Protein backbone atom coordinates (compact mmCIF):
# COMPACT_ATOMS: atom_id res chain seq x y z
CA UNK A 1 0.00 0.00 0.00
CA UNK A 2 1.12 3.55 -0.64
CA UNK A 3 1.52 5.91 2.33
CA UNK A 4 -1.72 7.68 1.37
CA UNK A 5 -3.58 4.39 1.31
CA UNK A 6 -2.05 3.40 4.65
CA UNK A 7 -3.18 6.64 6.26
CA UNK A 8 -6.68 6.34 4.85
CA UNK A 9 -6.84 2.72 5.97
CA UNK A 10 -5.96 3.75 9.52
CA UNK A 11 -8.65 6.43 9.47
CA UNK A 12 -11.16 3.91 8.10
CA UNK A 13 -10.21 1.36 10.74
CA UNK A 14 -10.70 3.96 13.47
CA UNK A 15 -14.11 4.89 12.12
CA UNK A 16 -15.24 1.27 11.78
CA UNK A 17 -14.13 0.45 15.33
CA UNK A 18 -15.74 3.61 16.69
CA UNK A 19 -19.02 3.03 14.87
CA UNK A 20 -19.06 -0.54 16.17
CA UNK A 21 -19.08 0.97 19.64
CA UNK A 22 -15.41 0.90 20.66
CA UNK A 23 -14.73 4.16 22.54
CA UNK A 24 -12.97 6.67 20.30
CA UNK A 25 -9.71 6.77 22.31
CA UNK A 26 -9.18 2.99 22.39
CA UNK A 27 -10.30 2.82 18.74
CA UNK A 28 -7.51 5.22 17.73
CA UNK A 29 -4.97 3.40 19.91
CA UNK A 30 -5.82 0.04 18.32
CA UNK A 31 -5.85 1.43 14.76
CA UNK A 32 -2.55 3.27 15.27
CA UNK A 33 -0.82 0.29 16.86
CA UNK A 34 -2.14 -2.06 14.20
CA UNK A 35 -0.80 0.28 11.55
CA UNK A 36 2.63 0.53 13.18
CA UNK A 37 2.85 -3.22 13.68
CA UNK A 38 2.00 -3.97 10.06
CA UNK A 39 4.18 -1.30 8.42
CA UNK A 40 7.23 -0.44 10.55
CA UNK A 41 7.07 -3.39 12.88
CA UNK A 42 6.56 -4.49 16.41
CA UNK A 43 9.71 -2.89 17.77
CA UNK A 44 8.68 0.61 16.75
CA UNK A 45 5.20 0.09 18.15
CA UNK A 46 6.33 -1.17 21.58
CA UNK A 47 8.97 1.53 21.96
CA UNK A 48 6.46 4.23 21.08
CA UNK A 49 3.92 2.77 23.50
CA UNK A 50 6.52 2.87 26.23
CA UNK A 51 7.51 6.49 25.68
CA UNK A 52 4.59 8.43 24.23
CA UNK A 53 1.78 8.07 26.79
CA UNK A 54 3.97 8.86 29.81
CA UNK A 55 5.88 11.63 28.04
CA UNK A 56 2.61 13.30 27.08
CA UNK A 57 0.95 12.73 30.45
CA UNK A 58 3.85 14.20 32.40
CA UNK A 59 4.20 17.39 30.37
CA UNK A 60 3.82 20.50 32.43
CA UNK A 61 2.20 22.28 29.48
CA UNK A 62 -0.91 20.16 29.91
CA UNK A 63 -1.31 20.78 33.66
CA UNK A 64 -3.50 23.75 32.80
CA UNK A 65 -6.23 21.42 31.48
CA UNK A 66 -7.34 19.70 34.72
CA UNK A 67 -6.84 22.97 36.57
CA UNK A 68 -9.29 24.90 34.37
CA UNK A 69 -11.70 21.97 34.54
CA UNK A 70 -11.43 21.96 38.34
CA UNK A 71 -12.12 25.68 38.53
CA UNK A 72 -15.31 25.31 36.47
CA UNK A 73 -16.50 22.23 38.33
CA UNK A 74 -15.97 23.83 41.73
CA UNK A 75 -17.74 27.03 40.63
CA UNK A 76 -20.71 24.97 39.48
CA UNK A 77 -20.84 22.87 42.65
CA UNK A 78 -20.60 25.93 44.85
CA UNK A 79 -23.76 27.38 43.26
CA UNK A 80 -21.77 30.27 41.83
CA UNK A 81 -23.26 29.49 38.42
CA UNK A 82 -26.80 29.00 39.72
CA UNK A 83 -26.75 32.44 41.30
CA UNK A 84 -25.38 33.97 38.13
CA UNK A 85 -28.11 32.37 36.06
CA UNK A 86 -30.86 33.52 38.42
CA UNK A 87 -29.60 37.08 38.24
CA UNK A 88 -29.51 36.94 34.45
CA UNK A 89 -33.04 35.51 34.38
CA UNK A 90 -34.33 38.30 36.62
CA UNK A 91 -32.83 41.01 34.46
CA UNK A 92 -33.57 39.58 31.06
CA UNK A 93 -36.46 37.21 31.64
CA UNK A 94 -39.12 39.88 31.22
CA UNK A 95 -39.49 39.50 27.44
CA UNK A 96 -40.61 36.67 25.18
CA UNK A 97 -37.06 35.65 24.31
CA UNK A 98 -35.83 36.68 27.73
CA UNK A 99 -35.00 33.33 29.31
CA UNK A 100 -33.10 32.18 26.21
CA UNK A 101 -31.17 35.45 26.23
CA UNK A 102 -30.45 35.07 29.93
CA UNK A 103 -29.10 31.56 29.34
CA UNK A 104 -26.73 32.70 26.61
CA UNK A 105 -25.58 35.72 28.63
CA UNK A 106 -25.00 33.71 31.81
CA UNK A 107 -23.17 31.02 29.85
CA UNK A 108 -20.95 33.71 28.32
CA UNK A 109 -20.26 34.97 31.85
CA UNK A 110 -19.36 31.47 33.02
CA UNK A 111 -17.14 31.14 29.95
CA UNK A 112 -14.82 33.77 31.35
CA UNK A 113 -13.80 31.27 34.02
CA UNK A 114 -14.56 27.95 32.36
CA UNK A 115 -12.43 26.53 29.57
CA UNK A 116 -14.46 23.47 28.73
CA UNK A 117 -17.36 23.64 26.34
CA UNK A 118 -18.76 20.32 27.64
CA UNK A 119 -18.64 21.47 31.27
CA UNK A 120 -20.54 24.63 30.29
CA UNK A 121 -23.25 22.64 28.53
CA UNK A 122 -23.61 20.14 31.33
CA UNK A 123 -23.73 22.82 34.02
CA UNK A 124 -26.40 24.88 32.24
CA UNK A 125 -28.28 21.73 31.36
CA UNK A 126 -28.57 21.21 35.10
CA UNK A 127 -29.04 24.84 36.16
CA UNK A 128 -30.95 26.63 33.41
CA UNK A 129 -32.95 23.93 31.68
CA UNK A 130 -35.36 23.14 34.56
CA UNK A 131 -36.05 26.86 34.99
CA UNK A 132 -36.72 27.30 31.26
CA UNK A 133 -39.00 24.28 31.09
CA UNK A 134 -40.90 25.41 34.20
CA UNK A 135 -41.68 28.68 32.43
CA UNK A 136 -42.91 26.86 29.34
CA UNK A 137 -40.01 27.48 26.98
CA UNK A 138 -39.73 25.18 23.96
CA UNK A 139 -37.96 21.97 25.05
CA UNK A 140 -35.73 21.34 22.06
CA UNK A 141 -34.83 24.98 21.51
CA UNK A 142 -34.02 25.50 25.20
CA UNK A 143 -31.69 22.52 25.20
CA UNK A 144 -30.16 23.62 21.90
CA UNK A 145 -29.56 27.16 23.19
CA UNK A 146 -27.73 25.73 26.18
CA UNK A 147 -25.60 23.46 23.99
CA UNK A 148 -24.75 26.30 21.61
CA UNK A 149 -24.04 28.78 24.41
CA UNK A 150 -21.72 26.15 25.86
CA UNK A 151 -19.40 26.64 22.87
CA UNK A 152 -18.68 30.17 24.12
CA UNK A 153 -16.44 28.55 26.75
CA UNK A 154 -14.14 27.43 23.95
CA UNK A 155 -13.87 30.90 22.42
CA UNK A 156 -13.94 33.31 25.36
CA UNK A 157 -10.73 32.90 27.39
CA UNK A 158 -9.72 30.73 29.14
CA UNK A 159 -10.27 27.99 26.57
CA UNK A 160 -9.08 24.39 26.47
CA UNK A 161 -9.50 24.35 22.69
CA UNK A 162 -6.97 27.15 22.32
CA UNK A 163 -4.68 25.48 24.86
CA UNK A 164 -4.69 22.29 22.80
CA UNK A 165 -4.17 24.23 19.57
CA UNK A 166 -1.25 26.02 21.24
CA UNK A 167 0.27 22.75 22.38
CA UNK A 168 -0.06 21.15 18.96
CA UNK A 169 1.29 24.13 17.00
CA UNK A 170 3.60 25.88 19.45
CA UNK A 171 1.61 29.13 19.28
CA UNK A 172 1.46 31.43 22.29
CA UNK A 173 -1.48 30.48 24.48
CA UNK A 174 -1.76 34.02 25.86
CA UNK A 175 -2.14 35.44 22.36
CA UNK A 176 -4.60 32.72 21.38
CA UNK A 177 -6.73 33.57 24.41
CA UNK A 178 -6.86 37.20 23.33
CA UNK A 179 -7.72 36.16 19.77
CA UNK A 180 -10.84 34.40 21.04
CA UNK A 181 -12.39 37.42 22.77
CA UNK A 182 -14.09 39.16 19.82
CA UNK A 183 -15.05 35.94 17.99
CA UNK A 184 -16.63 34.83 21.28
CA UNK A 185 -18.58 38.04 21.64
CA UNK A 186 -19.54 37.93 17.96
CA UNK A 187 -20.80 34.39 18.43
CA UNK A 188 -22.85 35.45 21.43
CA UNK A 189 -24.36 38.33 19.44
CA UNK A 190 -25.13 35.93 16.59
CA UNK A 191 -26.95 33.57 18.93
CA UNK A 192 -28.94 36.41 20.46
CA UNK A 193 -30.08 37.66 17.04
CA UNK A 194 -31.03 34.12 16.01
CA UNK A 195 -32.95 33.58 19.26
CA UNK A 196 -34.92 36.83 19.02
CA UNK A 197 -35.81 36.09 15.39
CA UNK A 198 -36.82 32.49 16.07
CA UNK A 199 -38.97 33.34 19.07
CA UNK A 200 -40.65 36.08 17.04
CA UNK A 201 -41.17 33.98 13.88
CA UNK A 202 -41.98 30.50 15.18
CA UNK A 203 -45.05 30.18 17.36
CA UNK A 204 -44.59 27.87 20.32
CA UNK A 205 -40.96 28.80 20.94
CA UNK A 206 -41.82 31.63 23.32
CA UNK A 207 -42.36 30.69 26.98
CA UNK A 208 -45.94 30.35 28.22
CA UNK A 209 -45.18 32.28 31.39
CA UNK A 210 -43.20 35.48 31.62
CA UNK A 211 -42.25 36.67 35.09
CA UNK A 212 -41.21 40.29 35.62
CA UNK A 213 -39.26 41.25 38.72
CA UNK A 214 -39.24 44.62 40.50
CA UNK A 215 -36.10 46.71 40.10
CA UNK A 216 -35.12 46.30 43.73
CA UNK A 217 -34.99 42.54 43.44
CA UNK A 218 -33.08 42.81 40.19
CA UNK A 219 -30.45 45.00 41.83
CA UNK A 220 -30.22 42.67 44.82
CA UNK A 221 -29.63 39.75 42.44
CA UNK A 222 -26.54 41.50 41.06
CA UNK A 223 -24.52 40.48 44.07
CA UNK A 224 -24.48 37.01 42.52
CA UNK A 225 -22.16 38.34 39.83
CA UNK A 226 -19.22 39.21 42.06
CA UNK A 227 -17.79 35.69 42.55
CA UNK A 228 -17.52 35.31 38.78
CA UNK A 229 -15.99 38.78 38.49
CA UNK A 230 -13.43 37.96 41.17
CA UNK A 231 -12.41 34.70 39.53
CA UNK A 232 -12.24 36.16 36.02
CA UNK A 233 -10.20 39.10 37.31
CA UNK A 234 -7.90 36.73 39.19
CA UNK A 235 -7.25 34.56 36.14
CA UNK A 236 -7.17 37.08 33.30
CA UNK A 237 -5.85 39.91 35.44
CA UNK A 238 -3.09 37.64 36.70
CA UNK A 239 -2.09 36.70 33.16
CA UNK A 240 -2.20 40.15 31.60
CA UNK A 241 -0.48 42.00 34.43
CA UNK A 242 2.37 39.51 34.18
CA UNK A 243 1.86 38.17 37.70
CA UNK A 244 1.73 34.68 36.26
CA UNK A 245 2.24 32.89 32.96
CA UNK A 246 -0.93 31.55 31.26
CA UNK A 247 0.10 27.99 32.06
CA UNK A 248 -0.14 28.74 35.79
CA UNK A 249 -3.51 30.50 35.54
CA UNK A 250 -5.47 27.27 35.85
CA UNK A 251 -3.91 26.34 39.19
CA UNK A 252 -4.44 29.82 40.59
CA UNK A 253 -8.03 29.92 39.27
CA UNK A 254 -8.86 26.52 40.78
CA UNK A 255 -7.38 27.53 44.13
CA UNK A 256 -9.30 30.81 43.93
CA UNK A 257 -12.57 29.01 43.19
CA UNK A 258 -12.09 26.70 46.18
CA UNK A 259 -11.20 29.54 48.53
CA UNK A 260 -14.21 31.52 47.30
CA UNK A 261 -16.55 28.55 47.61
CA UNK A 262 -15.49 27.95 51.21
CA UNK A 263 -15.72 31.67 51.99
CA UNK A 264 -19.32 31.65 50.69
CA UNK A 265 -19.89 28.43 52.66
CA UNK A 266 -21.36 26.99 49.49
CA UNK A 267 -19.18 23.87 49.34
CA UNK A 268 -18.20 21.24 51.89
CA UNK A 269 -15.53 18.57 51.98
CA UNK A 270 -17.82 16.07 50.23
CA UNK A 271 -18.54 18.57 47.44
CA UNK A 272 -14.85 19.27 47.06
CA UNK A 273 -14.05 15.56 46.86
CA UNK A 274 -16.75 15.15 44.21
CA UNK A 275 -15.26 18.05 42.27
CA UNK A 276 -11.82 16.42 42.34
CA UNK A 277 -13.32 13.11 41.24
CA UNK A 278 -15.25 14.72 38.37
CA UNK A 279 -12.10 16.58 37.28
CA UNK A 280 -10.01 13.41 37.33
CA UNK A 281 -12.56 11.52 35.23
CA UNK A 282 -12.91 14.32 32.69
CA UNK A 283 -9.14 14.77 32.43
CA UNK A 284 -8.55 11.07 31.92
CA UNK A 285 -11.33 10.83 29.34
CA UNK A 286 -9.57 13.56 27.36
CA UNK A 287 -6.19 11.91 27.99
CA UNK A 288 -7.20 8.65 26.33
CA UNK A 289 -8.48 10.47 23.27
CA UNK A 290 -5.36 12.64 22.96
CA UNK A 291 -3.01 9.68 23.43
CA UNK A 292 -4.97 7.85 20.74
CA UNK A 293 -4.70 10.87 18.48
CA UNK A 294 -0.97 11.28 19.14
CA UNK A 295 -0.32 7.59 18.40
CA UNK A 296 -2.31 7.86 15.21
CA UNK A 297 -0.36 11.01 14.37
CA UNK A 298 2.90 9.14 14.96
CA UNK A 299 1.70 6.45 12.57
CA UNK A 300 0.83 9.09 9.97
CA UNK A 301 4.39 10.44 10.24
CA UNK A 302 6.23 7.13 10.13
CA UNK A 303 4.08 5.71 7.32
CA UNK A 304 4.81 8.76 5.17
CA UNK A 305 1.14 9.72 5.05
CA UNK A 306 1.75 13.26 6.28
CA UNK A 307 4.65 13.79 3.89
CA UNK A 308 2.68 12.52 0.90
CA UNK A 309 -0.59 14.26 1.64
CA UNK A 310 1.19 17.55 2.29
CA UNK A 311 2.98 17.18 -1.04
CA UNK A 312 -0.30 16.29 -2.71
CA UNK A 313 -2.09 19.33 -1.32
CA UNK A 314 0.90 21.49 -2.19
CA UNK A 315 0.78 20.18 -5.75
CA UNK A 316 -2.79 21.42 -6.07
CA UNK A 317 -1.33 24.88 -5.56
CA UNK A 318 -4.26 25.92 -3.40
CA UNK A 319 -4.75 29.57 -2.59
CA UNK A 320 -5.45 30.76 0.93
CA UNK A 321 -9.20 30.81 0.52
CA UNK A 322 -9.56 27.54 -1.35
CA UNK A 323 -7.44 25.93 1.36
CA UNK A 324 -9.61 27.42 4.09
CA UNK A 325 -12.72 26.28 2.24
CA UNK A 326 -11.28 22.78 2.11
CA UNK A 327 -10.53 22.84 5.84
CA UNK A 328 -14.00 24.16 6.66
CA UNK A 329 -15.67 21.50 4.52
CA UNK A 330 -13.53 18.77 6.03
CA UNK A 331 -14.20 19.83 9.62
CA UNK A 332 -17.91 20.37 9.12
CA UNK A 333 -18.35 16.90 7.61
CA UNK A 334 -15.96 15.09 9.97
CA UNK A 335 -17.34 17.12 12.86
CA UNK A 336 -20.78 15.65 12.37
CA UNK A 337 -19.48 12.19 13.23
CA UNK A 338 -16.21 12.50 15.12
CA UNK A 339 -15.63 14.16 18.44
CA UNK A 340 -13.90 17.54 18.01
CA UNK A 341 -10.83 16.84 20.11
CA UNK A 342 -9.70 13.76 18.23
CA UNK A 343 -10.49 15.53 14.97
CA UNK A 344 -8.07 18.34 15.80
CA UNK A 345 -5.39 16.10 17.27
CA UNK A 346 -5.35 13.98 14.14
CA UNK A 347 -5.70 16.64 11.45
CA UNK A 348 -3.77 19.61 12.77
CA UNK A 349 -0.31 18.05 12.29
CA UNK A 350 -1.23 17.82 8.59
CA UNK A 351 -3.12 21.08 8.14
CA UNK A 352 -1.05 23.47 10.22
CA UNK A 353 2.20 23.16 8.21
CA UNK A 354 0.24 23.72 5.00
CA UNK A 355 -1.45 26.80 6.44
CA UNK A 356 1.98 28.16 7.34
CA UNK A 357 3.37 27.40 3.89
CA UNK A 358 0.48 29.43 2.49
CA UNK A 359 1.37 32.31 4.80
CA UNK A 360 -1.88 32.20 6.74
CA UNK A 361 -1.74 34.11 10.03
CA UNK A 362 -1.48 31.34 12.64
CA UNK A 363 -3.68 33.25 15.11
CA UNK A 364 -6.44 33.72 12.55
CA UNK A 365 -6.14 30.07 11.54
CA UNK A 366 -6.41 29.09 15.20
CA UNK A 367 -9.67 30.99 15.58
CA UNK A 368 -11.15 29.37 12.49
CA UNK A 369 -10.10 25.90 13.65
CA UNK A 370 -11.40 26.44 17.18
CA UNK A 371 -14.65 27.86 15.80
CA UNK A 372 -15.05 24.75 13.64
CA UNK A 373 -14.29 22.55 16.63
CA UNK A 374 -16.97 24.32 18.64
CA UNK A 375 -19.47 24.06 15.79
CA UNK A 376 -18.83 20.34 15.56
CA UNK A 377 -19.72 20.07 19.25
CA UNK A 378 -23.28 21.08 18.36
CA UNK A 379 -23.79 19.49 14.94
CA UNK A 380 -25.98 16.39 14.87
CA UNK A 381 -25.74 13.50 15.01
CA UNK A 382 -22.56 13.33 17.13
CA UNK A 383 -22.37 16.55 19.11
CA UNK A 384 -20.65 16.47 22.49
CA UNK A 385 -22.54 19.48 23.82
CA UNK A 386 -25.86 18.07 22.63
CA UNK A 387 -25.10 14.84 24.46
CA UNK A 388 -24.01 16.75 27.57
CA UNK A 389 -27.30 18.67 27.72
CA UNK A 390 -29.34 15.53 27.06
CA UNK A 391 -27.44 13.72 29.80
CA UNK A 392 -27.88 16.60 32.23
CA UNK A 393 -31.62 16.75 31.48
CA UNK A 394 -31.91 13.15 32.61
CA UNK A 395 -33.63 12.09 29.36
CA UNK A 396 -36.33 14.78 29.49
CA UNK A 397 -34.97 15.86 26.08
CA UNK A 398 -34.82 13.45 23.16
CA UNK A 399 -32.20 13.53 20.43
CA UNK A 400 -34.81 14.46 17.80
CA UNK A 401 -36.00 17.47 19.80
CA UNK A 402 -32.54 18.90 20.32
CA UNK A 403 -31.50 18.14 16.68
CA UNK A 404 -34.42 20.23 15.41
CA UNK A 405 -33.83 22.94 17.99
CA UNK A 406 -30.20 23.46 17.00
CA UNK A 407 -30.92 24.17 13.31
CA UNK A 408 -31.60 27.94 13.58
CA UNK A 409 -28.50 28.33 15.72
CA UNK A 410 -26.42 26.43 13.16
CA UNK A 411 -27.67 28.90 10.55
CA UNK A 412 -26.31 31.65 12.79
CA UNK A 413 -23.01 29.74 13.07
CA UNK A 414 -22.60 29.74 9.29
CA UNK A 415 -22.95 33.53 9.19
CA UNK A 416 -20.53 33.96 12.11
CA UNK A 417 -17.98 31.66 10.49
CA UNK A 418 -18.27 33.56 7.21
CA UNK A 419 -17.60 36.82 9.07
CA UNK A 420 -14.54 35.33 10.79
CA UNK A 421 -13.16 34.18 7.43
CA UNK A 422 -13.96 37.44 5.66
CA UNK A 423 -12.59 39.71 8.37
CA UNK A 424 -9.37 38.27 9.91
CA UNK A 425 -9.05 41.43 12.01
CA UNK A 426 -11.86 40.20 14.29
CA UNK A 427 -9.39 37.55 15.42
CA UNK A 428 -6.03 39.24 15.02
CA UNK A 429 -6.63 42.82 16.13
CA UNK A 430 -6.67 42.28 19.89
CA UNK A 431 -3.58 39.99 20.07
CA UNK A 432 -1.68 42.48 17.89
CA UNK A 433 -2.75 45.31 20.21
CA UNK A 434 -1.46 43.32 23.16
CA UNK A 435 1.98 43.01 21.62
CA UNK A 436 1.91 46.65 20.77
CA UNK A 437 2.85 46.60 17.11
Amino acid at each position, binding site marked *: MSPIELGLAAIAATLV*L*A*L*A*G*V*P*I*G*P*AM*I*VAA*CGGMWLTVGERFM*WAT*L*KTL*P*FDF*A*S*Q*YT*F*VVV*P*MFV*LMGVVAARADIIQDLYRAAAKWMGGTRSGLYVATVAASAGFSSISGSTVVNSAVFGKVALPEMLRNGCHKGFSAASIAAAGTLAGLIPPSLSFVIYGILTGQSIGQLFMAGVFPGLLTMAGYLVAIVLVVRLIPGYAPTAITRYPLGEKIRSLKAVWPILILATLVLG*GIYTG*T*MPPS*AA*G*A*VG*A*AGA*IVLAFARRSINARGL*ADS*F*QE*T*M*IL*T*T*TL*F*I*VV*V*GGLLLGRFFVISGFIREITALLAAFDLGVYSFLLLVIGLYLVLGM*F*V*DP*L*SMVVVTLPVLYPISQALGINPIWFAVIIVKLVEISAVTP*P*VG*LNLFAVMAASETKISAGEIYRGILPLLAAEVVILALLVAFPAISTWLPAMMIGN
Partner: protein
Amino acid sequence: MTMHAVDTALAWALRMSAWIGWAALGLMMIVGTGDVIGTAFFRRPILGAFEMAGSALAVVMFIGLIHVQTRRSHIVVDLVTAGLRGPMRRLADCFALFGTVTALYLIARQTWPLMLDSWRIREVSIGAFNFPVYPVKTLICLGATIAAAIAVVQLLQSLVRLFPRREGGAA
Protein backbone atom coordinates in the same frame (compact mmCIF):
# COMPACT_ATOMS: atom_id res chain seq x y z
CA MET B 1 -11.17 -16.32 44.37
CA THR B 2 -14.87 -15.63 44.85
CA MET B 3 -16.76 -12.80 43.21
CA HIS B 4 -17.08 -11.29 46.64
CA ALA B 5 -13.33 -11.09 47.07
CA VAL B 6 -13.00 -9.48 43.64
CA ASP B 7 -15.66 -6.92 44.51
CA THR B 8 -14.00 -6.11 47.82
CA ALA B 9 -10.61 -5.74 46.18
CA LEU B 10 -12.11 -3.55 43.49
CA ALA B 11 -13.89 -1.31 45.99
CA TRP B 12 -10.66 -0.92 47.92
CA ALA B 13 -8.67 -0.15 44.76
CA LEU B 14 -11.25 2.43 43.73
CA ARG B 15 -11.18 4.20 47.08
CA MET B 16 -7.39 4.22 47.39
CA SER B 17 -6.81 5.28 43.80
CA ALA B 18 -9.37 8.08 44.14
CA TRP B 19 -7.48 9.45 47.13
CA ILE B 20 -4.21 9.26 45.22
CA GLY B 21 -5.70 11.01 42.20
CA TRP B 22 -7.25 13.77 44.31
CA ALA B 23 -3.96 14.25 46.16
CA ALA B 24 -2.15 14.59 42.85
CA LEU B 25 -4.69 17.17 41.64
CA GLY B 26 -4.35 19.04 44.92
CA LEU B 27 -0.56 18.97 44.66
CA MET B 28 -0.73 20.34 41.12
CA MET B 29 -2.95 23.19 42.29
CA ILE B 30 -0.93 24.02 45.39
CA VAL B 31 2.45 23.84 43.64
CA GLY B 32 1.17 25.99 40.75
CA THR B 33 -0.39 28.60 43.01
CA GLY B 34 2.52 28.54 45.43
CA ASP B 35 5.00 29.06 42.62
CA VAL B 36 3.08 32.07 41.29
CA ILE B 37 2.74 33.68 44.71
CA GLY B 38 6.30 32.79 45.69
CA THR B 39 7.82 34.19 42.50
CA ALA B 40 5.71 37.33 42.28
CA PHE B 41 5.72 38.41 45.91
CA PHE B 42 8.45 36.62 47.85
CA ARG B 43 11.27 36.07 45.32
CA ARG B 44 10.88 32.37 46.17
CA PRO B 45 9.84 30.17 43.27
CA ILE B 46 9.06 26.57 44.19
CA LEU B 47 12.05 24.48 43.15
CA GLY B 48 11.08 21.82 40.65
CA ALA B 49 7.51 23.13 40.40
CA PHE B 50 7.10 22.09 36.76
CA GLU B 51 8.53 18.63 37.27
CA MET B 52 6.34 18.04 40.31
CA ALA B 53 3.18 19.28 38.60
CA GLY B 54 3.99 17.23 35.50
CA SER B 55 4.49 14.08 37.56
CA ALA B 56 1.23 14.73 39.41
CA LEU B 57 -0.55 15.12 36.08
CA ALA B 58 0.74 11.75 34.91
CA VAL B 59 -0.54 10.20 38.13
CA VAL B 60 -3.98 11.77 37.65
CA MET B 61 -4.25 10.56 34.06
CA PHE B 62 -3.14 6.98 34.68
CA ILE B 63 -4.89 6.55 38.05
CA GLY B 64 -7.97 8.12 36.47
CA LEU B 65 -8.00 5.26 33.95
CA ILE B 66 -9.20 2.99 36.76
CA HIS B 67 -12.23 5.19 37.35
CA VAL B 68 -12.98 5.91 33.71
CA GLN B 69 -12.92 2.18 32.98
CA THR B 70 -15.02 1.28 36.03
CA ARG B 71 -17.71 3.75 34.98
CA ARG B 72 -17.02 3.19 31.30
CA SER B 73 -17.19 6.95 30.82
CA HIS B 74 -15.12 6.99 27.64
CA ILE B 75 -16.16 9.18 24.73
CA VAL B 76 -18.23 6.88 22.51
CA VAL B 77 -19.71 7.48 19.08
CA ASP B 78 -22.94 5.54 19.59
CA LEU B 79 -24.47 6.39 16.24
CA VAL B 80 -25.04 2.79 15.26
CA THR B 81 -24.94 0.97 18.57
CA ALA B 82 -27.58 3.16 20.25
CA GLY B 83 -30.17 1.72 17.86
CA LEU B 84 -29.32 -1.93 18.63
CA ARG B 85 -31.51 -4.09 20.88
CA GLY B 86 -31.31 -7.53 22.46
CA PRO B 87 -28.55 -9.94 21.46
CA MET B 88 -27.11 -7.54 18.87
CA ARG B 89 -26.69 -4.96 21.59
CA ARG B 90 -24.92 -7.46 23.83
CA LEU B 91 -22.68 -8.49 20.95
CA ALA B 92 -21.77 -4.87 20.26
CA ASP B 93 -21.00 -4.40 23.95
CA CYS B 94 -18.62 -7.37 23.82
CA PHE B 95 -16.91 -5.92 20.79
CA ALA B 96 -16.57 -2.49 22.39
CA LEU B 97 -15.01 -4.05 25.48
CA PHE B 98 -12.74 -6.21 23.37
CA GLY B 99 -11.41 -3.07 21.65
CA THR B 100 -10.97 -1.33 24.99
CA VAL B 101 -9.16 -4.32 26.52
CA THR B 102 -6.79 -4.40 23.54
CA ALA B 103 -5.99 -0.70 23.85
CA LEU B 104 -5.52 -0.81 27.62
CA TYR B 105 -3.37 -3.93 27.32
CA LEU B 106 -1.11 -2.16 24.81
CA ILE B 107 -0.70 0.83 27.12
CA ALA B 108 -0.46 -1.14 30.37
CA ARG B 109 2.05 -3.69 29.11
CA GLN B 110 4.64 -1.00 28.40
CA THR B 111 4.18 0.75 31.74
CA TRP B 112 5.93 -2.30 33.28
CA PRO B 113 9.34 -1.81 31.63
CA LEU B 114 8.83 1.94 32.15
CA MET B 115 8.48 1.36 35.88
CA LEU B 116 11.19 -1.33 36.19
CA ASP B 117 13.77 0.77 34.32
CA SER B 118 13.00 3.66 36.63
CA TRP B 119 13.54 1.50 39.74
CA ARG B 120 16.73 0.01 38.33
CA ILE B 121 18.41 3.39 37.91
CA ARG B 122 16.63 4.94 40.96
CA GLU B 123 15.44 7.65 38.60
CA VAL B 124 15.20 11.19 39.92
CA SER B 125 13.61 14.21 38.22
CA ILE B 126 15.76 16.74 36.39
CA GLY B 127 15.81 20.42 37.25
CA ALA B 128 16.41 22.36 40.42
CA PHE B 129 14.90 19.81 42.81
CA ASN B 130 15.62 16.14 42.10
CA PHE B 131 12.83 14.09 43.62
CA PRO B 132 12.46 10.32 42.99
CA VAL B 133 10.46 9.47 39.87
CA TYR B 134 10.12 5.71 40.40
CA PRO B 135 7.19 6.01 42.83
CA VAL B 136 5.40 8.07 40.17
CA LYS B 137 6.05 5.46 37.51
CA THR B 138 4.90 2.75 39.91
CA LEU B 139 1.54 4.50 40.30
CA ILE B 140 1.35 4.86 36.53
CA CYS B 141 1.92 1.15 36.08
CA LEU B 142 -0.65 0.32 38.75
CA GLY B 143 -3.24 2.64 37.22
CA ALA B 144 -2.90 1.26 33.71
CA THR B 145 -2.68 -2.37 34.86
CA ILE B 146 -5.70 -2.21 37.17
CA ALA B 147 -7.72 -0.40 34.50
CA ALA B 148 -6.83 -3.11 31.99
CA ALA B 149 -7.78 -5.80 34.52
CA ILE B 150 -11.13 -4.13 35.14
CA ALA B 151 -11.76 -4.03 31.40
CA VAL B 152 -10.98 -7.77 31.18
CA VAL B 153 -13.49 -8.49 33.96
CA GLN B 154 -16.08 -6.35 32.18
CA LEU B 155 -15.39 -8.23 28.94
CA LEU B 156 -15.84 -11.59 30.68
CA GLN B 157 -19.09 -10.38 32.21
CA SER B 158 -20.33 -9.24 28.82
CA LEU B 159 -19.42 -12.64 27.34
CA VAL B 160 -21.43 -14.32 30.08
CA ARG B 161 -24.38 -12.11 29.25
CA LEU B 162 -24.00 -13.09 25.62
CA PHE B 163 -24.99 -16.67 26.44
CA PRO B 164 -27.72 -16.38 29.06
CA ARG B 165 -28.14 -19.69 30.83
CA ARG B 166 -31.64 -21.00 31.33
CA GLU B 167 -30.95 -22.45 34.76
CA GLY B 168 -29.51 -20.07 37.29
CA GLY B 169 -26.13 -21.20 38.62
CA ALA B 170 -23.83 -19.77 41.22
CA ALA B 171 -21.81 -17.08 39.47
